[in-house]
C-alpha cells in the first residue's frame, strides 16, 4: 500500500483547469440549444399539432430510450457514413449535438408539464383580449412555465455538465480526456481521477448552491 502522491495531485489541478472552459462551453452551448429545441417540442406537444405531434413524440421516445453514449457514437462514427457533409464533423460539434438532442427530449417533457400546469383561465383571458395563440404562448404561458420548470431544468444542466465527460470517447480532449492522458503518462491513475472527480464535484456543488438561491427567489415571486 503506497501513500497518495499529493504533490502530483496539486500540480495536476492547474493543468486540468485549463480544460474547464471547453467542458463548460460544451455544456453551455448544449443547454442553450436544448432549451430552444425543447420549448419547440413542448409547444408542439401541448398544441397537439397533427403530424408534428407524432414526430415530436417519436423523437422524445427515441432520445429518452437510448443511452447518450450510443447516440454520440451514432452521430460521430455512424452518420458520416451516409451524410457526406458530416464527414468533417468534429468531436466537439458531435458532443454538443448529442447533448442537445438527448437532453431536449427530457426537458421537453418537463416544460410540457409546466405549461399544462398553468391555469387554463389565463389562456382564455389572453384570447379574450384578442391575443393570437402564438402571442399567448410567448407572453403569458411560456414565461410562467419556464419559471415553474427552472429547478428541473437546472438539474438537467448539472447532469449535462457531467455528461460532457463522454466527449473523450469521441477523441475530444476536455476535462476527462485530459485526465486520461495525464494518468496514462504518469501511471498515477488513482490520483489523476480523484482530482478530476473533485473538480466535477466542486462545480456541481457550486451550481447546486446557485440553484437553491434561485429557487428561493422564484418561490417568493409574484408576491410584491
Amino acid at each position, binding site marked *: 500500500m503506497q501513500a497518495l502522491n499529493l504533490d502530483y495531485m496539486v500540480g495536476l489541478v492547474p493543468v486540468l483547469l485549463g480544460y474547464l472552459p471547453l467542458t463548460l462551453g460544451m455544456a453551455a452551448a448544449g443547454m442553450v440549444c436544448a432549451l430552444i429545441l425543447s420549448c419547440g417540442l413542448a409547444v408542439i406537444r401541448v398544441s397537439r399539432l397533427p403530424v408534428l405531434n407524432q414526430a415530436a413524440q417519436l423523437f422524445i421516445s427515441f432520445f429518452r430510450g437510448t443511452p447518450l453514449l450510443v447516440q454520440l457514437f451514432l452521430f460521430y462514427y455512424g452518420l458520416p457514413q451516409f451524410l457526406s457533409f458530416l464527414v468533417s464533423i468534429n468531436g466537439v460539434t458531435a458532443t454538443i449535438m448529442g447533448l442537445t438532442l438527448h437532453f431536449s427530449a427530457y426537458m421537453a417533457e418537463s416544460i410540457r408539464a409546466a405549461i399544462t400546469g398553468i391555469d387554463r383561465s389565463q389562456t*382564455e383571458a389572453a384570447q*379574450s383580449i384578442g391575443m393570437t395563440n402564438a402571442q399567448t404562448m410567448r407572453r403569458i404561458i411560456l414565461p410562467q412555465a419556464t419559471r415553474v420548470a427552472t429547478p428541473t431544468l437546472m438539474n438537467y444542466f448539472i447532469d449535462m455538465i457531467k455528461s460532457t465527460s463522454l466527449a473523450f470517447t469521441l477523441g475530444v480532449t476536455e476535462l476527462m480526456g485530459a485526465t486520461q492522458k495525464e494518468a496514462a503518462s504518469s501511471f498515477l491513475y488513482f490520483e489523476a481521477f480523484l482530482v478530476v472527480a473533485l473538480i466535477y464535484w466542486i462545480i456541481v456543488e457550486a451550481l447546486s448552491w446557485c440553484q437553491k438561491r434561485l429557487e428561493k427567489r422564484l418561490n417568493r415571486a409574484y408576491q*410584491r
Partner: protein
Amino acid sequence: MIALKGITKRFGEHTVLDGIDLSLARGEIIVVIGPSGTGKSTLLRCVNFLERPDAGQLTVGDLSVDAARATSDDILGLRRRTAFVFQNYALFAHKTALENIAERMIVVEGLSKREAHARAREILERIGLADKADAYPAALSGGQQQRIGIGRAMAAKAEVILFDEPTSALDPEWVEEVLALMKQLAAEQQTMIVVTHEMQFAREVADQVVFMEGGRIVEQAPPSELFTNPRDERTRSFLRKVLAGNAPSDA
C-alpha cells in the same frame, strides 16, 4: 350595436344554447339571469368565441360573422371588439396590475410600452387602484383583483364588455366595491352584458333583463317590468326562489 341571431351550441348530444336572439344598442346594459346550467356562461363565451357556436350570426359593431363559417380572422376580429370579465378574475399571474391592464395595448394595439403604461395608469386611476400599480395579483384581495380584471377589459375599449358572474367568487366584503365600479361604467355608457345573481344590481342598472332557462330566452323585459310583473310561470318561480333569499345553488 351588438346582435346575436339564432346562436346555437351543442356539447355532444346536449344542446346548451338553442337559437338565442339578442340585441343591444350602444350604451345599453343587459343583465342575464337564470338557473344554474342554463347556458348563461356559454352564451357569453360564444360571443367572443371562447366557445365556438355551432350556428348563428354574430354582429359586433362593424363586424358580422356567420358562426358556422368563422375564419380565424373573424374570431380575432370579434375578440378585439369585445372584452370579458371572468368569475375567477383570470389575471396574468406573472404580471403586475399595471402590466395586466397594459398587455392588450402593447400586444394588440402595438403601442409602445411607455404609452401603454401611461394609459394603464389612467385606468388604474379610474378604478381607484393607482397605488397598486406594481402589485402582483397574488398580493391583492379578491375585490381588487376583479377590479383589475375589469380594468383590463376597459383597456380594450370594446364595443361590449361581457361579465360572467363577476362577484360570485368574491367574499361578501368585496362585492360592493366591484358592483360600484360596474355602476360607474354603466354611468359612462359602457355597453355590457352581465350574467349575475345580484338582483338589486339588475334592478338599478339594467336596461333589459333576460331570463334564460334550458338554453333559451324565456322572457326579456325592463327590470321594472320583469321583476314586478313577470309573464312566464318559469320566471315567476325562479324569482320567487331567488328573492326569498335562497340564491340559486351555485351563487
